[in-house]
């Protein structure tokens, strides 16, 4: 069966077909969630970002220009929202204004079913947290999302040289950290 392309689905949505939007989301919601989860480290934050991305897509899809691939556009939105979110969280953490109930919700709430999977993700999170956000972002986009430097450059707005250097430093830190573990 022929798969309908992202752009075809967008055009259908722009012509009033709401189901096409749902189909698009079905294709990308997992990717958005898992990218956000690896980047931010827990379900609570990943859920927040995933919902924000869906809201932005819902509001902005009408202005999609078809100049870039839809998936890079989605990652770009996720990237921007996640970075803003991290900045906000840093301020909150600095000012210690996160409530205890929210902290507890952050720790306990999860959609991953198996304990060993949760532990794996926790290990990954510990390793990735040793990286600055910029290096973590490039590493995840290249390693886990399988994007090339040109695509990552389009998403992050950074030059390819900078991205290569970021990735190199991320690899250095990660392989060292893995050696200790």
């Amino acid at each position, binding site marked *: 069966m022929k798969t309908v392309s992202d752009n075809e689905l967008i055009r259908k949505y722009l012509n009033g077909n709401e189901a096409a939007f749902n189909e698009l989301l079905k294709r990308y919601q997992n990717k958005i969630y898992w990218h956000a989860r690896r980047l931010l480290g827990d379900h609570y934050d990943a859920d927040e970002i995933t919902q924000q991305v869906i809201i932005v897509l819902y509001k902005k899809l009408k202005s999609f220009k078809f100049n870039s691939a839809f998936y890079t556009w989605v990652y770009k939105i996720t990237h921007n929202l996640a970075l803003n979110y991290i900045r906000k969280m840093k301020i909150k953490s600095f000012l210690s204004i996160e409530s205890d109930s929210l902290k507890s919700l952050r720790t306990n709430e999860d959609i991953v079913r198996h304990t060993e999977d949760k532990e794996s993700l926790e290990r990954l999170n510990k390793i990735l947290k040793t990286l600055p956000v910029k290096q973590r972002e490039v590493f995840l986009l290249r390693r886990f999302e399988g994007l090339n430097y040109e695509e990552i450059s389009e998403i992050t707005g950074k030059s390819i040289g900078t991205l290569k250097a970021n990735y190199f430093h991320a*690899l250095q830190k990660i392989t060292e950290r893995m050696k200790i573990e």
Partner: protein
Amino acid sequence: MNKKEKILKYLSGMLTPPQAKAFEEELRNDDELRTIFNETKHRLNLLDSLGDEKPVDELYFTNIVPRAKQKIQNAENKKRERLFAPAVYLALFTILSLLFFSRLFDSSLQTKSDIERAIKYGNLTPAQSEMIDYYLENNLFAFGSLDSTFYDGNAFNVTNLNTPAAIDFYENKILNDNDLFNIIDDNEYNLLLNDLKKLKLF
């Protein structure tokens, strides 16, 4: 450049195509380099397995779109509330102001003090003005227990109105006075009658 750095540069795509080709050649011939390279690859593969997508509660992804749409709806409601709140407050303020001022200048004269104030400030209906003029011109206020102190040209002395003689006077003169009612219409007549009823004269 040590061996590890060379491996990481190769994996990062930092080597030029000739450098990458030379590295691959070296990798085939250098056992130590190959061991470090394999260890590095192994660690990264291990990391991949830690972070790959795990089985999750499927309901989460089924519900996420409706939840996001609900969020949009809530945000729009809040926005609408914020947008309309000043208009609602303004409308409320206007209504209350109108009520206040209409009470102050109400020509329907609901209480004795309303009538006194209305006369004092000249806010009378045409019928009321006609009535007062008519009775002043014809000196009818001097009838019975009523005298000219009833109306001194500025204020209505309403206390004198609520006497049996005054009631008798109004019943006879106003209800049966064709001259007066020839110059006022039905609406004005009803207003006048209501005002007098409120004064308990009817």
